[in-house]
C-alpha cells in the first residue's frame, strides 16, 4: 500500500465525511433548536435531486437548476414545518418520529408517481468532468469541488451559529426554548427558518451527490441512516459533534472496507466492514452515552 494509495483513500473518506456532515448538521440543528427528530431529512436529499434533474432538463443551466431546486425545496420545507411539524414541537419524540417517517413514505411514493420508477439522469457539469492531478493521482475534479463546497458551507454554518445574532437565538432556544420566547423572540418563526435552512443543506448534499449516484425513489433513506449514526456518535444537538462524527464514520467506513478484508480474509473482513460504523457507534455510546460532544439531558 503506497503513500499515493493512502492519500487517495483519505481524499475519498474526507469527501464522504463532508457530505455526511452536510446531512448530519441538519439533523443535529433541528434537534438542537427545536427538539425535533426529523426523519424526513433524507426526503429533502432526494427531492432536491429530483427538482434539480427536472429543472435542468427544461433549462439546461446548472446554476438556474441549482438555485431553483433549492428555492423550491425551501418553500416546501416552510410549508411542511407550518402544517405538519409545528404541532409536534411540544409532543413526544415518538410522535415526531412517526409523523416524519410517514413523510418519507409519502415523498417516496410521490416522486414515483410524478417521475416514474426508473432512475432519472442528472448530468455532470462539463467543466467539472475532468481530472485534477494531485501528485501522481488523477483525482476526479468533481469530487474535489464537492469537498470544497462542503468545507465552505461548514464554515458558513459555524459563522452563522457562533458569530451572528440569529445564531445566538438558535443556540439560546436550543438551551431553553421557553425563556427565549419569554424574552420576546419569535421562536416559531425561528423554527421555520431553521427548518428551511436544514432542508436546503440536505438539498445541497442531494444535488451535489446526484451526478454520482442514481436519482431514484428512496435514494435518501440510506443517507438518512448514516447521518443518524453520525449524530449519535457526535452527540445530538452539537454541530462540532456532527463534524467530528461525520469524519470518524467516513474514515472508519472507507479504511475498514479497504483493510479489514485484507487483514481478516474476505468473509470475516467484509462482514466486519459492513458493521464497522455501527460498532463504532456502540463503542462510543458505552464510552460516552450522550455522544462525544453531547450533553446529558
Amino acid at each position, binding site marked *: *500500500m*503506497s503513500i499515493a*494509495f493512502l492519500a*487517495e*483513500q483519505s481524499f*475519498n*473518506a474526507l*469527501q*464522504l465525511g463532508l457530505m455526511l456532515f452536510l446531512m448530519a448538521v441538519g439533523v443535529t440543528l433541528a434537534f438542537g433548536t427545536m427538539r425535533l427528530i426529523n426523519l424526513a431529512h433524507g426526503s429533502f436529499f432526494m427531492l432536491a435531486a429530483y427538482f434539480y434533474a427536472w429543472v435542468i432538463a427544461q433549462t439546461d443551466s446548472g446554476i438556474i437548476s441549482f438555485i431553483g431546486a433549492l428555492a423550491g425545496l425551501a418553500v416546501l420545507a416552510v410549508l411542511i414545518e407550518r402544517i405538519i411539524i409545528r404541532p409536534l414541537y411540544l409532543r413526544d419524540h415518538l410522535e415526531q418520529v412517526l409523523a416524519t417517517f410517514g413523510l418519507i413514505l409519502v415523498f417516496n411514493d410521490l416522486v414515483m408517481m410524478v417521475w416514474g*420508477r*426508473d*432512475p*432519472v*439522469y442528472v*448530468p*455532470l457539469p462539463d467543466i467539472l*468532468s475532468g*481530472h485534477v492531478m494531485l501528485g501522481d493521482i*488523477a483525482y*476526479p475534479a*468533481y*469530487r474535489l469541488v464537492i469537498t470544497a463546497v462542503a468545507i465552505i458551507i461548514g464554515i458558513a454554518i459555524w459563522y452563522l451559529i457562533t458569530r451572528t445574532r440569529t445564531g445566538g437565538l438558535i443556540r439560546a432556544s436550543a438551551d431553553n426554548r421557553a425563556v427565549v420566547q419569554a424574552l420576546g423572540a419569535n421562536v416559531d418563526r425561528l423554527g421555520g427558518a431553521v427548518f428551511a435552512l436544514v432542508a436546503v443543506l440536505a438539498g445541497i448534499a442531494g444535488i451535489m451527490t446526484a*451526478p*454520482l*449516484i*442514481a*436519482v*431514484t425513489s*428512496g*435514494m435518501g433513506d*440510506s443517507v438518512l*441512516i448514516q447521518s443518524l449514526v453520525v449524530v449519535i456518535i457526535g452527540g445530538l444537538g452539537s454541530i462540532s459533534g456532527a463534524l467530528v462524527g461525520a469524519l470518524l464514520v467516513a474514515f472508519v467506513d*472507507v479504511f475498514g*472496507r*479497504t483493510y479489514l*478484508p485484507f487483514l481478516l480474509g*474476505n468473509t470475516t473482513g*467484509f462482514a466486519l466492514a*459492513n458493521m464497522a460504523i455501527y460498532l463504532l457507534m456502540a463503542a462510543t455510546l458505552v464510552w460516552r452515552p450522550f455522544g462525544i460532544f453531547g450533553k446529558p439531558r
Partner: protein
Amino acid sequence: MTSRLSLLAGMTLAALLPLSAQAQSQDPVRLGFLSSMSGTFGVLGAEQKRGMDLALEHLGNKLGGRPVKLIEVDDKSSPVEAADLANKLVEREKVQVVTGLVVSNSMLAAIDPLLKNNVFVVGANAGPSQLAGEKCHQNMFVVAFANEQWGTGLADYLNRTGVKRMMFLGMDYQAGWDHAKSVARNFKGENLGEIYTPLSQMDFSSVLTQVRAKKPDAIYAFYVGGAAVPFMKQWKQSGLGQSVKLYSMGAIADSMLLPAMGDAALDLETAYSWNPEMKTPGNQRFVEDFRKKHGRNPTQFAMFQYDAIMLLDAAVKEADPADADKFRAALKKANFKSLRGNFKFNNNNFPIQDIILQRVEKTPDGKFDVKFVDIIKKDVEDPHHRSCPLKS
C-alpha cells in the same frame, strides 16, 4: 323470403356451432402471475408484465388455442407476501400454472405452497441455486438462467482474448457472489482480488481506488438495481476506463437504465442471454411491438417472460395442464421458438443456452444502445444440475 330466413338461420347456426363443439376442451387455462410489481423490485416485475402482456396479445389471449384466465398478484417485493399469495392462488383461484417470480427470495418463499399443491411453476427470471440443485422439482421449470451461466461464458471469452490480470467486484449477496465468482473461478489468468460491497453502498470511490492501485488489465463488476447507475457513473468519472477494461452482465446497463447513465456506460461489454438485435425467429416482431407500446427497447426481463408464455402456449397445445404427466412432458420438450434461439431444458429443468456478448455504443441520434456483438459460448449449463436428482 324463405331463402333469406334460411340464410339467417344458417348463419346463426354456423356462429353457434363452434361454441358447442369445443365447449368441453375450451375451459380456460388458469394461469397465475405472481411477481413483484411494487416495492424494491417493482421495476423488474412491471417489466415482466409488459413481456407477458405482449406475448398474450400476440397469441390472441389464448394459450395453445384455449382461453386464459389470468390472475395477477403483486407480492410488493416481500417474500412473506409471496408465500401468502401463493396459497391464495392455489386455494381461492385454483390456478394450474404460476409464472413470473422475478426475485429469488420471493420465489423461494412461494415455491413450496405451489409445488405441494401440484401447481406447475414456470419461473421467468429468478433461479436460486438451491432450486437448480438438490431442491429441483419435476413440476418447476425456469426459462431464464442460472446465476453462473453468463460468468462461465464470459470467462471463456476472456481466456480466449488473452486478458491476463483481473479484479472482481460485486454486491455482497448471493447473486453477487454467484456472478462474480463464476467469472473468477473459470478465469485462467491472475486473480488480483475480489471486493464485495453492501447492497446499500452507493459511493464506490474507495473500491475504485483499490482497483487503481492493483492495475489490472480488466475488471468484472456485478452491480444491479439501485447500484448500477451510481457504479457506472463513478467508473466513468474515475477515468480508470482509459487503462482498465470493464466487463459485466447485461442488467447493469439495459434499456431501462441507460437513459440515466448518459455516456457513462459507453464501450462497456456485458455477457447476457439475449439482445434486441438478434436475428432469431420472432425477435424482430417482439422488439418492434414492444417499442411501439413503450417507446424503448425491451429488456431481458420482458423477454424471459415472453418466452415463458410461449413455452406454455406450446405445452398447452400438446397436453391439458390437468393431465400432469403429459403436460410435464410437453413442457420439458420446450417445443417453442425461444427469442434467444438455441434453448433446451437440462435435467434440472433449467435452460441450456448460448451466452452472448454485447457492447454499449452511441447511436446516430446521440443516444446509447446495447449492440449485439457475438455468441461467445454455446450450450452453457449451470454447475448445479449435477446435484439435482431428476433425470433428463
